[in-house]
Every structure is written in C-alpha cells, then in structure tokens.
C-alpha cells in the first residue's frame, strides 16, 4: 500500500506520523518536491506531502516577525514581505535550475530543512539565523513548539535553529516564525575585471574586513560568466550610503584596478545567477558545494584544477566554492583530501545521479564521536527511523 498523505493541518500530520511510527512505515517528507534530488535518495513507500499546509498565520512588519505554515511557497513569502518593503535577508537560493527542475518552486519548510542561504549569508547570516520559532511533529508523532515569536529569545534549547539543515529527519515542521528585515533602498555592484584567483580572493577578503558593509563577495574566474574573470562586491542600503561606500572600496582596492559599477537591475541579475549556480545549470556534470575558510578557497581550487578537469567559482568571499567536475567523474577522494589540507570544512555532492548519491557519502563524513552524537539525536526524535530515512547518512 503506497500512499501519499496530504495533511491540511498539524493534527493530520500528527496522525500520519503516529500511524507510520506504529506500523514501522517510513515516510518521505516533501513540500513541492523541488529538492528531492538533493541529499541521499530516501527509501520510503509513503509520501508525506506538506504542500497543502499553507498560509500566512501572522505578519507584523513593525515587529520584524512573520509566522507562516511550513508548506507555503517561498516565492509567496518573498512577495508578501517584498510588498511591505522587507525581505528574507538570508536570500534563499533556488536549487531548481541546477538540479534540472523548474525555478521558483519550493516551500518555506524545504528552504529551512536544507538551510538554504544566498550571497548575503556573509553579512546577514544563514537561513538558520532567521528562524525564531517552530511548531513541529517529531518522529514519535508528538506535536511540539519551540522558540518564540519575538526576535530575542533564549528560553530553552534553540531547537528551531537546530532543526534547520536536518532535512526533515528529526521532525516535520508545520509552522515557522521567521525574522524579516527591511529591504535595502538600493544596491550596486563593484566590479573588478580580470583578476587571478588569489588576487581576487585577497581583494574580497580585504573588502569584507573593511567598514564598507559588503553584502555579497564573489569571484567568477574567466570562462565562467564571460571571457574575463569578474570579481564582484555588492553594496546595499540607503542610496547616499551606497555611493559613499563605493568610493571607500575604490580607495581600499585601488591596487587591483579601476572598478565598473553595475546599477541595480544588472546587479540583481548577476547576484541571482551566483546564488542559484546558473553557470553550471546547463550541464549535467557532478557538482560539489564546498564550505571552507574564505582565504583558503583559492588554494583548494588551484590544487584541484591543476590535477583535474574542473571549473569553479567562489561566493562568500571565497568561503563557498562551487565545483563542476567537467570530466563527469566524482573525484570525491581528491576533493575531500584537498579540503582537509585547506584546513577542513564541508564538501557536499549536490548534483549526481540517484544511484551515485545512494552509494557515495553526499555530506561530509563525520568523526566517530560526532557521528554517534548525531545518531543519538536521531534516536531521540525519531526512534523508528521513519522520517526521511537515510536522507543525510545511511541508516540515520
């Protein structure tokens, strides 16, 4: 009996999970299903489809707080807050284009389950940093609330934040409270042409360490987006301030050449391309996402490119490296070894066939005591292993 359950409210989610736990029937938890190709494929006969759990519960712009059902489309939320001069400042990325899916889909719950952030993460923090409260159903079928609906709260463990990035393996989020921020009045991009990687990242790190309040710092080497390399810094805020900070950067980075200035529209397009990894969207080669100390990014890439047929570009001031293995091979061992030598971090296989993602560790393997702690947390929240079984690690 393969079934898709489409609950309309939290109670029905509870019912479905309780049944699954009692009958030892694993569930695949999905929203729009737009990120199904991310992580390890889930082995489950039944689907718990949260896309019917929609609606804005409350939104108070002056309190900077939004409470929304987890199955609500992220696009709808972004539109609503945008219409009120606000934004989700973690700038959720859209994996659709990279994974061969339609763009613009995905739910709030899905964005949080995968902890998806964009270029502004370096200034504003990740998705996890904007979650204030959550109602969820654990793998035991217990409804619980955690966190609150105010922007400052330290009452109890920070479960809402901790459930971000857990890919629905601990609990099913049903309602979430997010912190929203004012949308900047304007934005502009500071563009330097033709820098080599090492110089480019040096420029980005210098800018990040300045008082220019940079909200995007990326480097697209030559061949990624046009012939020449593009080193770009985004400035956002009140117009007078953006102009002023542009001049600050001009002085600070004079040694790297004279900049061009991209106006708001062009700037917006460029950062969306970077956010959604569009330079790699048209191919089908394996893609890795590597989180590393920013200044170590170029070293990592230089070493890999010297040995392998790879393309790479950098976001987060060098700390987020997107790698495309153009020979079609995975190169897992080489990438993880290079990352280790670069001081460690996380390498995640974000695009590969399901059969590959079932056998190769998609996420960065953990040392034994940390892996054991992860298993213990999973056992506490989902002792029967029914929620998205194996989505992150085999057997968890």
């Amino acid at each position, binding site marked *: 009996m393969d079934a898709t359950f489409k609950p309309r409210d939290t109670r029905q989610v509870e*019912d479905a999970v309780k049944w699954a736990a009692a009958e030892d029937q694993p569930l695949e938890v999905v929203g729009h299903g737009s990120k199904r190709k991310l992580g390890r494929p889930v082995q489950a006969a039944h689907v718990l489809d949260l896309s019917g759990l929609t609606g804005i519960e409350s939104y108070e712009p002056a309190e900077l707080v939004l409470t929304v059902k987890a199955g609500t489309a992220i696009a709808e939320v972004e539109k609503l807050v945008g219409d009120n001069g606000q934004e989700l400042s973690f700038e959720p990325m859209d994996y659709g284009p990279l994974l061969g899916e339609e763009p613009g889909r995905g739910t709030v719950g899905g964005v949080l389950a995968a902890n998806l952030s964009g270029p502004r993460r370096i200034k504003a923090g990740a998705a996890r*940093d904007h979650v204030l409260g959550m109602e969820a159903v654990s793998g035991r079928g217990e409804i619980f609330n955690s966190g*609150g609906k105010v922007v400052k709260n*330290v009452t109890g*463990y*920070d479960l809402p934040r*901790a459930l971000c990035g857990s890919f629905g393996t601990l609990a099913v989020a049903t309602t979430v409270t997010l912190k929203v921020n004012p949308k900047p009045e304007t934005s502009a991009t500071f563009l330097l042409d033709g820098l080599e990687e090492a110089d480019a990242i040096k420029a980005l790190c210098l800018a990040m360490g300045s008082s220019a309040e940079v909200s995007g710092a990326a480097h697209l080497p030559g061949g990624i987006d046009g012939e020449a390399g593009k080193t770009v810094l985004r400035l956002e805020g009140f117009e007078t301030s953006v102009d002023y900070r542009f001049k600050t950067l001009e002085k600070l980075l004079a040694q790297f050449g004279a900049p061009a200035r991209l106006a708001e529209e062009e700037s917006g397009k460029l950062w969306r391309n970077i956010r959604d990894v569009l330079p790699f969207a048209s191919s089908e080669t394996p893609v890795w996402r590597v*989180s590393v100390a920013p200044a170590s990014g170029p070293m990592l890439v230089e070493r890999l490119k010297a040995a392998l047929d790879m393309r790479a570009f950098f976001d987060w001031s060098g700390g987020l490296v997107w790698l495309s293995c153009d020979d079609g091979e995975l190169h897992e061992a080489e990438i993880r070894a290079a990352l280790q030598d670069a001081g460690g971090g996380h390498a995640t296989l974000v695009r590969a066939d399901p059969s590959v993602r079932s056998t190769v560790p998609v*996420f960065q393997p953990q040392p034994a005591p940390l892996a054991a702690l992860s298993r213990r947390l999973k*056992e506490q929240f989902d002792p029967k292993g029914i929620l998205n079984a194996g989505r992150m690690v085999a057997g968890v």
Partner: protein
Amino acid sequence: MTAIAMPAPDRDVLARRREILSALQAIVPGEGVIHDEREMRAYETDALTAYRQLPLIVVLPETVDQVSRVLRYCYDNDVKVVPRGAGTSLSGGALPLEDGVLLSMMKFNQVLDIDYANRAVVVQPGVTNLGITRAVEGEGFYYAPDPSSQIACSIGGNIAENSGGVHCLKYGLTTNNVLGLEMVLITGEVIRLGGKHLDSEGYDFLALMTGSEGLLGVVTEVTVRILQKPETARALLIGFPASEDGGRCVADIIAAGIIPGGMEMMDRLAIHAAEDFVHAGYPLDVEALLIVELDGPEREVDYLIGRVEEIARAHAASHVRISANEEERMTFWAGRKAAFPAVGRISPDYLCMDGTIPRRELPKVLARMRDLGEKHGLRVANVFHAGDGNLHPLILYDANKPGELEAAEAFGADILRLCVEVGGVLTGEHGVGIEKRDLMTEMFSEDDLKQQQRVKCAFDEKHLLNPGKVFPLLHRCAELGKMHVHKGQLPFPDIPRF
C-alpha cells in the same frame, strides 16, 4: 530561604567525597583542585546572589585532556558537574550543587589565533568577551555581542547563555557570531563543531550548544567572527511625555527601514535614578527616554540621524538632542549604562528581570506592571532594549525586611507570566537557569519540554551536567525514550490520500 528548590543531594556521593577528591587530584595536579571550605566560598554563587551553595569540590583544569578525564571520571562514577566561566550569570546558571563538582574554565584564558583574512578569532573559553575585542581593536576590529558584563564575562559563558547586549538587534546574539567550538561531552569525548568556514552540514549542534546553559557539554575552544568597527556612531536622546509615543516612535523607526545599532528606552523611575547618579543631562519631565544610536559609514549616519529626528518630532517628542561629538554620545549612554547601579542606590536590593514582548504590547505591559507593583507593594524601574522588545524590569526591594525577597520574586514571576501572556517569552538574554526554571511550564507544554529534554538525553543521558537548571522536572531518559504507540490503528480518515 528562597522559593526555588534544588534537587536533594545524593548522600552516596557526599559520602564518597574523599575518594572523589583524590581521583580528581590525580587528574589535575596542585592548586587546580580546591576543597577547603574557605577557598570554595569564592564559587558559592554567581550574579544571582540571592542563592548560595558550596560545591562538593572545585576543579580548575588547564588542558583539554584534563577536562576530558575529569568528565569521564564523573561519568563513570555518577558525579554531577556544574561548569562555570566567570560566574556572571544573572539566572543562577553557575550555582553549585552540594553533591557536584564545580568545573571552572577560567584557566583557559588564551587567545589562540587571530585571522583577519577570514575575520575569525580562536580563543579559549575563559577569555573575556571584551578580551576578544582588545585582541583585535588595534586593527580596527571588534567582537559584536556586548553584554553589559562584557569586561568580566567569559566567552565560554556567553556560549552557554547565548548572550546579547545593546547592539544585538543589528549585529545578532552570540549564536549569530559564533563560527565553531571544540567541546567535551560528559563521556570525555572531544568533538569539534564548525570552524572558520561558514556553513557546516549535519545536525546543527552548534545551535544547540549556544544557549544550552551548561547542560550539554563543556566548551574548550571557541571560534568567533569579528567585524570591522563602524566608521562612526552618533546618538539621539529623545524624551516623550507619554510612553505610548515612545513605543510608536520605535515602531516607525523600524518601519522606515532603519535598524539602529542600539535603541534603548528607560521609564521615569529609571531616568530619575540614572540622572541622580551620573548627571547625564537627562530630561526629568518625561515618561520615557529613548536613546537611538546609529552606526556605520559617516554619510549614512548623518542621513539617518535626520530621518530619526523627523520621526521623533512626529511623535510628540518633547526633547531631542543629537550627539555632536564622541564625548556627548558617551554621556547619553552613561546614564543608561549606569542604570542598574543607579537603581541600586535608591533601593537596598533589586531583582533584574529579563522578558521579551512584542513591542506593540509595551504600553499595556507597562500599565499592567504598575498594577502588579501595587499588588505586591513594590516599585519597579524599567530599562528596555526597545528595538527587540527585551524588557529589563528592576524590582526594588529590601532583603532585610522579612518577606520582601519572596514578594519581589513573586512580582518577577508575575511580570514574566505577563510577558508570555502577551505573546512574548521568559528570557531574552539572561537565560533560564534556576531563576526562571519553574516558570518554563508557563511558556511550554509537557510535550514541548519533553523534546527539549530529549536533546539533553542525546548528550547526557545520566543528567550529570548542571542538573536542576532550566527544567522544572527531570524525566529519566529511559522513561522519555519509551514509544507509546497503538499498533494496528489507522486513525487518520480525514487526511486526503492519493
């Protein structure tokens, strides 16, 4: 005696004190183990001084290996452990247990690595909050979270409490500024979380550790993000004849897309106490005083000062002053920063509360608080992180008058219940500790608290780390782990199925 009871000590552990002492002395040599009653007095309380308790033994390890072996010994021998940083907790988070080892981390006081390119600093947990800024300010950097105890409080304690400060509306709490940790589990296992990179995958234990009040593990190393100091900062001092206008002014500043570096409000009693104490030049004929600090690039700050002034005038502000220089800005802050000691001058004792409310509820909460004050026969002064709704009512009382501490605690509990009732929370930045432990059921259901304790069970199934804090009732992990399921039922006829 005060109202909050701690768990009954384990007689068996008390009887084994000598044996435990010699085992700990074998792990941490010399003066690193304190057992003399007089010397242990220094550790009997934290900044919630109404509560005092001598620990079983005090241990001050110097290496991660020692921390690991001490915890492993305690785990194997069922001895409780209370971790402690600088002891500045306002909620009793570091209150010792009679049958527990007090583990002081203050010998871990080294800055290990300063990395400007990655904007990261690696320190040991006993380094003070301000110590991090001191280590990098020569290059123009600073560590953003600034709890008022920042000169004394340790970064390890900041992790435990997820400390905030006046700048956290714009720059975030500790949790938004920590990149990585090294920590020791109660089993003695050492794990590392995060690092100088931004995103870590797997379960977010860093999020769970930050604000865990010493219940999950002992932090031995911390990596934090540092920022370049804002180019400039200027402040406005704004007085309102009615606190409602002050509240509306705050809302309109935010609605205008302005997130100030700091936005603090004081009520009449707090204003008068502060002015009497430091003579900051505060107006005395107002009900609410607002300090709005704008920081950032000079041009932006000048522009926003003008915008905020307009908004203030539109809300019937009776006084508006704008700092013309750094000295004047500091004067504006002097009264606010001295508000606690200033209140200490007009009352023998005070209790500092820490609830958060939705800002729109401020007028209602202030009015209800006045009524509650009459009910309990005590006065209250309010300072308020106005931008994020974090309220610090200071309840004035005299511990030498019989019953006044109890009345103050009851008043405080009523205020926190009120915060929850209007949609807020029990604590914005001071932590639950013992102080708010018994109020957790006001905010959370039994099932809510069960999930919290399941986190605890994943880390410390024997409940040896800091028991008696945060949770009003300790469920045994074996009991919590039971699944109550009814086989064979298919009780979801209402769920649409396909």
